[in-house]
């Protein structure tokens, strides 16, 4: 292996990592909203992602069977649908379950784990235990070839753009809209926010459902890099939580940086170490860092 090849491997694994980065980022952003801002541990977050992925799969099957001509353009619609369905389920879950548990964060963890069991079994009953893959539009297939030895898959670039757009919108939403201000106010001081007339219950419900909706988008993005099974979501849940904690829980920017770091480390290490060792090494590194720096990479500055 000469230096040229090594470099190509780096670039290509880097781009393979970018797909993973995009999915982790989208998962992490949703969690950063739900966990980082609201303090709720949503163990069913992966199942919301799976819902998005199954929505995309359903769209693709329907389009293929009934309107094959729409195949090139169904994907963006599926993304929007994935967001809407996951957000709706999220609002329902918040109303039925989460709102009763805000004062018991550890219990939200356990209750949402029960929910994740139910959702997984629901997917299994409807779609079967076998993994499914939607038919992707032609334009998502194939790859760029900037040089002889480098292949950059188009779907990776697409999900990267998607993740970028969602991140941008979320940041705008949080920092430039009236609702974002209310959300940040509620997170910092719930009692005071209620006193100045913010409907904190509504804020909670909307924030939770937006977080779940973003997980739905992550699911749609996920279909471009892997096939979906009932437990696909749960495989990403630990990574997603580590993204948020490692980045510094209350910091959206931190989540972006840590998602990038975790995804790139995993994907580059996976090439050099066989099997799951790349993942183990990455997770181990993060856990050790968190033991010495529990506040994460970018802690929020608050005088305790």
């Amino acid at each position: 292996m000469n230096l040229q090849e090594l470099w190509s491997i780096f670039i290509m694994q880097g781009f393979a990592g970018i797909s993973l980065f995009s999915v982790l980022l989208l998962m992490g952003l949703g969690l950063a909203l739900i966990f980082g801002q609201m303090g709720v541990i949503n163990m069913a977050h992966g199942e919301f992602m799976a819902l998005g992925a199954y929505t995309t799969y359903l769209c693709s099957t329907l389009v293929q069977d009934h309107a094959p001509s729409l195949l090139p353009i169904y994907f963006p619609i599926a993304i929007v649908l994935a967001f809407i369905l996951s957000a709706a389920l999220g609002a329902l879950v918040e109303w039925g379950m989460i709102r009763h548990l805000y004062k018991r964060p550890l219990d939200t963890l356990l209750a949402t784990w029960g929910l994740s069991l139910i959702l997984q079994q629901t997917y299994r009953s409807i779609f079967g235990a076998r993994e499914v893959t939607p038919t992707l539009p032609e334009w998502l297939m194939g790859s760029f070839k900037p040089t002889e030895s480098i292949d950059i898959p188009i779907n990776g670039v697409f999900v990267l753009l998607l993740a970028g757009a969602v991140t941008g919108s979320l940041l705008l939403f949080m920092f430039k809209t009236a609702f974002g201000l209310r959300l940040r106010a509620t997170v910092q001081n719930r009692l005071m926010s209620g006193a100045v007339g913010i409907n904190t219950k509504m804020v909670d419900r909307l924030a939770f459902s937006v977080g779940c909706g973003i997980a739905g988008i992550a699911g749609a993005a996920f279909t471009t890099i892997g096939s979906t099974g009932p437990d696909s979501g749960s495989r990403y849940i630990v990574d997603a939580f580590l993204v948020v904690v490692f980045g510094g829980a209350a910091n959206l920017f931190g989540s972006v940086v840590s998602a990038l770091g975790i995804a790139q480390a995993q994907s580059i290490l996976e090439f050099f170490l066989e099997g799951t060792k790349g993942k183990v090494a990455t997770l181990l590194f993060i856990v050790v860092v968190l033991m010495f720096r529990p506040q994460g990479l970018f802690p929020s500055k608050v005088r305790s």
Partner: protein
Amino acid sequence: MNIKTLFKSKAEVYTTVTLAALVLVVLPLLLPIFRLNLFGKYLTFGFVGVGLVLLWGRCGILSLGQGVFFGLGGYCMAMFLKLEASDPISTKIQSTPGIPDFMDWNQITKLPWFWEPFKSFPFAMAAILVIPTLVAFGIGWAMFRRRVGGVYFAIITQAIALIISLGIDGNQGYTGGRNGITDLRTLLGMDIRSNVSQYIIYYISALLLFACILFGKYIINSRMGRVLVAIRDREDRVRFSGYDVAMCRSFVFALAALFSGIGGAMFVLQVGFMSPSLIGIVPSIEMVIFAAVGGRLSVIGAVYGVLIVNLGKTTFSEAFPELWLFLMGGTFIAVVMFFPDGLAGLTEPGGPLSKLWQKWGARLLPGLARRIAENHSSTATTTVLAEKTALNEVTNATK
């Protein structure tokens, strides 16, 4: 130490004696040996449950990595048994006789260094007790000293469970990989699969479990028990009463790990194998469920929870595998949302069931209900009275 340091009320004595009678007498008499063996397996999860009551219920530390310690204890036992099973004669068809079969399949020709000491029975037994305890103490001390607690601790311990299970999975040559360590037959020459040894192993598990239960009860009723609850509810005050909060937390985490490790070792003896599927995220969180269903505050309740949920799991998942996950998920949500103290909270004096019984049972069986009601209210008042008289006695003695 007298009996009062273990049991605070009559009700506690009843529930403990009932459990002991059930596990030590009724089940062995009633069940055929292969069913009893299944219960023996459940009992080994009970060790984890007892630890979780102290750790999570009493001290408020939720660990989603208890499977790791169960696994560490289990692997220590399994490594010893595997080496005993891999003597050069029974492994003579391998290219390297005398090492475990999975190493041979993975072209390993020499026993790895960390397997060597597990040839010794005393070492293996000590390792079962020491390794989970030390690992937990190290992790706990690193995190609690930096005031990592609550949800962060839960997430990090969960990540550790994932790392360890993936790590074992990915190193087949050294650990047996996904299949785990299998074909364990004898312990010091005794066939662990024969009926007689199955009974012996069952009784050892049960007695060890009761030792852990009683130790747990002793801790709950000692000053340590009050300090643990105080740490859960008002950490700062405990610190400013001069207690080393990080040390107390590390202690209870290490103790819970010790219990789990013993459970894991007994599990291996009961079922004859150990694999990473008992370590990862799912089994670790399931152990928390068992404890939550039984009652996170009560060591006896948690053991009942372990037995009931596992019995349900085995029965239902054989008959209606699809329904089981719905039922389990639903039960869990219901317990967390409506009965956070679990079965023990439902049945304790003054709890919902006893109120229901006083309301309806009184109409159906007037005499019995009255007696029970009196009994309950008198236990409550007698404890207060007993404390008062004890106090007076001591005061008089000092005068």
